[in-house]
């Protein structure tokens, strides 16, 4: 590659490291990150250096003491560490952020995509690719009546017509019930499907129309029932 071409890639990487790309630039960065950067020492070093430099920018802000209630709140959320066997990582290249996934679980769905191991792995791959996009948004759902994060997160991107619900060690719903997924505009809610988690990882792909909906609800529904209104909301998020 011509040195000038490297400069073009590096210029794009500077915007990527800042998470400031959108549209065609974000798509081009995604392509370069998968096709060029892994095999180019110069661009790889530049990206890592830019990512480090961007991380340092946090120090330019004034440090502020968090409220004294924050650490106790965190302590309440710290579940004991479980023994686990990682089978994969979702790597956010700029920050090295990854979610360690846990072996052994398969999401089972009725209506939503999930199922056997091969299909689950394909869903992993799709969610992984989406999470690596510069404009991807990964957000934990929260418990309906609390501010604690739920064991499920959404992975989405602005121009994608679906999102993923990804969870680790999602607790089963009460006996005789299933989890329902509803899409809402804040007034009405539309049933999108249901799923049953198993120990391990749950990945569910949910079709999503951003022009109609701005939030996702996970509810408890009676198994086998045709729900017309959302059941008890257990987790929710604004998309």
């Amino acid at each position: 590659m011509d040195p000038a071409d490297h400069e073009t890639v590096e210029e794009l990487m500077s915007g990527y490291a800042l998470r400031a790309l959108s549209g065609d630039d974000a798509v081009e960065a995604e392509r370069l990150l998968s096709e060029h950067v892994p095999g180019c020492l110069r661009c790889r070093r530049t990206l890592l250096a830019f990512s480090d430099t961007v991380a340092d920018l946090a120090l330019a802000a004034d440090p502020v003491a968090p409220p004294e209630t924050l650490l106790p709140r965190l302590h309440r959320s710290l579940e004991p560490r479980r023994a686990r066997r990682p089978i994969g990582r979702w790597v956010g290249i700029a920050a090295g952020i990854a979610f360690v996934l846990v072996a052994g679980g398969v999401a089972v769905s009725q209506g939503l995509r999930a199922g056997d191991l091969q299909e689950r792995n394909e869903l992993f791959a799709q969610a992984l690719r989406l999470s690596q996009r510069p404009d991807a948004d990964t957000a934990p759902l929260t418990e309906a009546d609390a501010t604690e994060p739920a064991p499920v997160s959404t992975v989405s991107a602005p121009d994608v017509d679906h999102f993923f619900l990804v969870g680790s060690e999602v607790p089963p719903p009460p006996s005789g019930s299933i989890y329902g997924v509803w899409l809402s505009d804040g007034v009405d809610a539309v049933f999108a499907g249901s799923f049953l988690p198993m120990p391990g990882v749950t990945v569910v792909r949910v079709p999503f129309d951003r022009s109609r909906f701005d939030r996702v609800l996970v509810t408890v529904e009676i198994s086998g029932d045709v729900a017309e209104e959302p059941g008890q909301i257990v987790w929710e998020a604004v998309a």
Partner: protein
Amino acid sequence: MREGDQEDLELHRRLVAGDRDAFDRLYHRYSPTAYGIAFRLTGQQILAQDVVHEAFLALWRAPEAFDAARGAFRNFFLSLVHHRAVDTIRREERIRARQERASNLEPVASEDPADEVVDDDSVARRRLEVRAALADLSGDQRQVLEMAYFEGKTQVRIAEELGIPLGTVKTRTFAALRKLRAALEVEA
């Protein structure tokens, strides 16, 4: 390896083993910086608390996400905080835009930050270096960098707000990061 990095590595090793004391020590070391950046971006204490809470919880739940071969722990964690803060303000902007369309709500006002804090020595030294390097950028370069990092804006939006071509934003950003990188690598 910079001062403080070795101690971070040891704390992280203990964190992987489920050591809550190591978690607390990392919290005391980095929560003021994390809260400072989260507050700077979100402008609201409740959102800043949520960002820091989520970031530390993610660290506890998946400490293996940090790979020492990819850089310093501090950079990994502060990037995690920044990403979550950017996600939060972009999400809040979408919500606010919908709410304003619906009811002309007033934008959420900023709140007063909590008391300032005294940094860990190594963090304090690095903070001075970063601020000096930022001050050394041209005003144009610093402006695009701050709009992207501290306001979570895309380059397209920065170009729109400043009324300059997108290419100019890209060029300034690239030049700014290269200059910062050079300055901070020398300092490190």
